[in-house]
């Protein structure tokens, strides 16, 4: 049997009515999108471009004005579809009087994990999210990074096939963001489909297989990360021990073949790479 996409969105439009006059604000405009199974899919775009609204519609939290959405072949907004989906909302807020373990256990029960398997599922989710040590603390005492990670644990405790993460790294330091990136990669390794909404483009580039970019409610680009980033009309050659004479000779040789040397620069590492290289022990757990 051929498995269809994890998420299929066809001609989705969402209008919000605002003000007393009921003025129409179009948040999502005729969006058509397919998220393949078993991949990490990045949904990108500036604030207010309709990403979160799209995700909420996919989860049945917001009703679309028009369009069709299915999750894992099931009609979106049904309990059966949500049972196979995990969701971490943007800036998650949980009941502060619960401990991390109680929260994840509670979510396991709500997500339909059989009673006899709840404790094992909770322990596994906490372990995967790196929250085992802090699981006994009250959620109200958690840092932003820990809130995101306990949010991840509650999203994956029922071992869903599809995990939707809305800004999982918002407000998290680079070390914490890298940890979340590793969790996402481990989910992909386990065959899960992950939809990732993030403004950390560097991380999206690292962990995503495919990306879609939205602007003003419309889809402006969609494709495999390698394909959309590659500039096929340019090439990069890394040369060691380059001397001025060698550079001049190379320019001459290139000109003889109709090619031109565009720029000569030194390779740079990203600030994030440098930061992670220097700050190794400061985990927020």
């Amino acid at each position: 049997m051929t498995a269809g996409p994890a998420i299929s969105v066809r001609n989705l439009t969402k209008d919000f009515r605002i003000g007393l006059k009921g003025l129409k604000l179009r948040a999502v405009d005729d969006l058509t999108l397919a998220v393949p199974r078993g991949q990490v899919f990045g949904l990108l775009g500036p604030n207010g471009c309709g990403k979160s609204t799209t995700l909420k519609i996919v989860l049945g939290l917001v009703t679309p004005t028009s369009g069709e959405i299915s999750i894992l072949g099931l009609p979106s907004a049904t309990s059966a579809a949500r049972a196979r989906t995990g969701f971490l909302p943007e800036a998650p807020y949980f009941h502060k009087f619960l401990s991390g373990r109680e929260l994840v256990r509670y979510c396991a029960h709500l997500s339909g994990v059989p009673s006899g398997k709840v404790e094992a599922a909770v322990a596994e989710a906490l372990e995967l999210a790196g929250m085992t040590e802090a699981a006994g603390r009250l959620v109200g005492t958690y840092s932003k990074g820990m809130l995101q990670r306990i949010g991840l644990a509650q999203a994956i405790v029922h071992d869903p096939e599809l995990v939707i993460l809305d800004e999982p790294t918002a407000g998290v330091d680079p070390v914490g963001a890298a940890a979340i990136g590793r969790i996402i990669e481990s989910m992909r390794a386990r065959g899960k489909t992950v939809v990732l909404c993030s403004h950390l483009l560097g991380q999206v580039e690292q962990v995503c297989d495919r990306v879609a970019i939205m602007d003003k409610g419309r889809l402006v680009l969609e494709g495999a990360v390698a394909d959309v980033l590659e500039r096929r009309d340019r090439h990069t050659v890394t040369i060691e021990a380059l001397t001025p004479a060698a550079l001049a000779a190379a320019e001459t040789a290139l000109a003889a073949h109709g090619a031109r040397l565009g720029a000569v620069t030194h390779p740079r590492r990203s600030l994030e790479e440098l930061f992670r290289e220097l700050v190794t022990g400061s985990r927020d757990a």
Partner: protein
Amino acid sequence: MNAAFARCLWIARLTFLEAIRQRFFAFLFLLGAVLVLSSGAVRAFDFGHSELKFIADFGFGGLFLFGSILGVVMTAQLFFAEIDNRTALTLLAKPLGRGEFLVGKFLGTWAVLGVFVAVLAALLAVMMGARAAELAELAVERRLPPPECDLLGLAVAALLQWLRLGVVVALVLTVAAAARTFLFAVVVGALAVLAGQLQWLSQELLLKPAEAGLGRAVLWVLTHLLPNLQQFNLGDVLVLAPTQVPAGTLPWVFASGLAYIAAFLACAAFLFRRREI
């Protein structure tokens, strides 16, 4: 256990835990307890009968007043806390039906009010039992019949108050499911409870026996959209003169209360069905 019901119970459990942490609950709980305990300070000099009635009225009055305030404010607060703090976003993204969410909220809030009613009714029972014993001794000395004080009747009256508060919670949940703000839900919910308290007036004034046909049917529907909350106030009769309760009254009041709860919850679920979270 049915999976849907199990999910309702988990929501109820969390709602209960959240509610009993509220200072507002503790404040009204203490205020109600103080009111019931202070009823013992009242003295009348007719060898018991009026005095016990006063204590019963005082106690049930406290239950009614503070229970109603708690029912309205706490229900709206617990509902909007989930919406405004966006915890509902996490919960409703799980395989949890919106109706299940509302039923869970209802059960959790109703359970908290159950604790409130049980404790205040127990205090009232202690106050009335002690005073009734004292008055019985005085009555024997004066060769008068001892005053009647049926503690089982008090338990039934407390159950009725709890049922009445259940109707209030379901009614406020219906308002909250359609309301955009906490304040709107509290104000409209309180007005609806007040209207329910005065409902017997409209039923008696509007439904005159002489009227018949379509007009009467429309009036009947209009006067029964809101429950008659006065019908639950049988406390003093049940405690002081249990034999005077007309046959069939209690089953009717219980059935009517449960029917209103079911109807309001169904209405709330319908209104909440397409609400954008």
